[in-house]
């Protein structure tokens, strides 16, 4: 870190931005594997229904609850068949789409709305904060399942409505976290330094406060992902969520539950998918937190460039 250390000019750095990021990803093997897993799941979600949609819904009562790792019915039954004899593998791949749509949609909506109001509540004066926080308290004190039942009963079960309901119940988490962090960060010296320079409120919030609290929010969002997937399944279980023949992993778990004693694979595989997705997201967000923090980034940079 001596004064004489040469630093690359910025234009070169910008060109290398993407490849540098990939390099950092490669250096964290867990995150790298997670990224690949997530890409595969994304591919499932995008192409799955078109390729395997028919297979996933075709019933075959002879293959009811057929055990996994038995290739006599063809490779598609490698993970076994469900209670109506539909291949689990195909259903898993097809279900990726609606699962990801609901989970990602709900988490992203809750994150954006929660962070937005959290920033306002934390940064603005007492009145705005009071109003927003009491509203959040109302949402939190209302049993989320009850809220979901009411809303979905009125609006009718569909994916956008599911996203809406799940997002509303998760908003307070982001809102409260954001507000708490903002209250701390806004007192930091560099925020005051920005005020002295004449920075506008918008600039202070977006340039100085948000980047500091973003890693926390992203970490919560990834943890929330699994929660939302399971919440969606409990709504489906009550019959107000995703309706068959549409499928999600959560729905598959709840459909497999009665057969846990006789055919564990019905609930196990979709459960595993939820775990793998949540875990991958978590590992990736962990990597992202380090990669986006200038003070931590060196951990992921190659020795050569830091020693140069």
């Amino acid at each position, binding site marked *: 870190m001596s004064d004489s250390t040469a*630093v690359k000019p910025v234009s070169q750095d910008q060109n290398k931005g993407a490849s540098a990021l990939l390099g950092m990803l490669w250096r964290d093997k867990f995150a790298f594997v997670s990224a690949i897993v997530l890409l595969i799941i994304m591919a499932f979600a995008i192409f799955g229904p078109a390729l395997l949609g028919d297979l996933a819904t075709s019933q075959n009562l002879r293959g009811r609850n057929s055990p996994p790792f038995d290739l006599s019915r063809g490779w598609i039954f490698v993970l076994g068949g469900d209670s109506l004899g539909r291949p689990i593998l195909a259903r898993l791949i097809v279900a990726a789409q609606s699962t990801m749509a609901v989970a990602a949609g709900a988490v992203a909506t809750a994150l954006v709305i929660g962070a937005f109001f959290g920033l306002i509540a934390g940064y603005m004066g007492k009145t705005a904060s009071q109003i927003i926080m009491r509203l959040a308290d109302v949402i939190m004190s209302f049993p989320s399942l009850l809220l979901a039942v009411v809303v979905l009963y009125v609006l009718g079960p569909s994916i956008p409505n599911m996203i809406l309901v799940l997002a509303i119940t998760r908003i307070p988490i982001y809102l409260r976290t954001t507000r708490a962090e903002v209250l701390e960060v806004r007192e930091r*010296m560099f925020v*005051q*330094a920005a*005020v*002295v320079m*004449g920075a506008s409120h918008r600039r202070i919030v977006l340039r100085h406060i948000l980047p500091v609290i973003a890693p926390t929010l992203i970490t919560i969002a990834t943890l929330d992902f699994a929660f939302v997937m399971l919440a969606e399944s409990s709504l489906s279980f009550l019959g107000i969520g995703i309706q068959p023949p549409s499928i999600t992993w959560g729905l598959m778990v709840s459909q497999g539950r009665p057969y846990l004693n006789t055919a564990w694979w019905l609930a196990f595989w979709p459960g595993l998918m939820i775990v793998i997705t949540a875990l991958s997201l978590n590992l990736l967000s962990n990597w992202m937190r380090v990669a986006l923090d200038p003070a931590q980034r060196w951990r992921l940079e190659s020795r050569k460039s830091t020693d140069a």
Partner: protein
Amino acid sequence: MPEALLTVKNLSVDFHTARGTVHAVRNVSWSVNRGETLAILGESGSGKSVSASAVMNLLDTPPAEIVSGEIFHEGKELLKISYEEHRALNGKKIAMIFQDPLGHLNPVYTVGWQIVEMMTAHGRPIEMARARALELVTRVGIPEPEKALKKYPHQFSGGQRQRLMIAMALMLKPDILIADEPTTALDVTVQAEVLALLKELQQETGMALVLITHDLGVVAEIADRVVVMSEGEIVEEGTAREVYHKPRHAYTRKLIGAAPGKGDIRQPGPEASVLLEVSGLEKTYGNFTALKDAAFTLARGQSLAVVGESGSGKSTLARTILRLEQADKGTALWKGRDLITMPQRDLLAIRQQIQMVFQDPTQSLNPRMSVYQLISEGWEIHGLMPDRKARRARVEELLEQVELLPSHCDRYPHQFSGGQRQRIAIARALALEPELIICDEAVSALDVSVQAQVMALLDDLRAKLGISYLFIAHDLGVVRDFADTVLVMKEGEIVEQGSTEAIFSAPQHPYTQRLLAANLDPDPDIQAQRARSGRAAP
């Protein structure tokens, strides 16, 4: 020679980091006897705290690795005993106090509880602990000690917290007290009291004191012997007087040379036009009056120092002028326009003319912005210099002006040392070509030699660009070298103001006199002489 109470022999410690191995200390040996004060003097990063941490078993291994060395205390080899044995020793025989007292007091317990716990944890009865706590809290100069014990850490000032920490460390009458920068965060008068207290306690109990410090004044005041460290090695060792008067090593000479307060007092320059005129400025928080009827004028190209202890309203003064806080009463005329009542929209233009450099550059620079972004942010805010190339060239120029390299543009604050960071903060302030820079303790957090560099830089900028300074400081040496006029503040009031020469040679107000008397001189002889005359006087 009898065996020393604590001996460190040929200690070498490496830190294994992802960036390679750092030799934190190499072959460090020192010892301390009963009733003796050893000062370990060095700047940040010199490894002065590492050997003390090794004594206390506070080094995390890994990343740290004790490569070689031995530490003896009463015949025991401290590097070889078990964790449990160490625990029995820590606090009881060897106690430590730290620089940052807020970080070391638990905010959810009363201080009384925490001080008492120190003793009960080592198996003493609680009544005894309470009595001793009360005695010590009275001793360290906390007002209303009985009530104080029932208060929480946040209810005390920084200085009081440090005194509580000292009380806590002394609960079990340790043989050895290791003090890591104990008075760095304290006001001069409090510092003098704390050092006097440590001296007294040492005479009574005969404990050994190991004082880790960067302050030559503290060394002169209290140390018997001093060990000077630089880059992990001991470069010089001797009695405090020897080292000050006959420094053998070049580093020691540089350190002594950099100590402020030895140069000529600045003579006021020719009369210049008034830039800022403050009158009747007041600010209260509830019942607490932070600022009372402040009035002064600042001329163009002048530097005005505001001195006072913490809580005297120095920072409030700066913050009300900058409108970071709204003043209750009074005016601050900036070139004839009142800053206090000015609407927000007009204020934006003024913000460009008045910049501020904060105390701690680690906190005042956004850690997620590169140096280029930090320095150019002001232009973005004020819509200046739209051309990217010109911006970049100007940032590089500014970096050179503050003696950093143009290539530092794309680095982030954490990649710099404290002094370099403060220079980035100064470059940021300069970017908007301000007419006034308010420095709120801008050099207090820096090492002496770095401090000297930054002060020289500020002085140079004043000469070249005609910038005025409102310079808030508690270090009188720095003020003496830098300021044209001085304001002395106490409890929100300006008790004395005048030219630097008048304040330093003939202080009128008793508080100013006390402040000057408490200021520590780096020369041990002057310090000893002062102590004698001080003892004779009352």
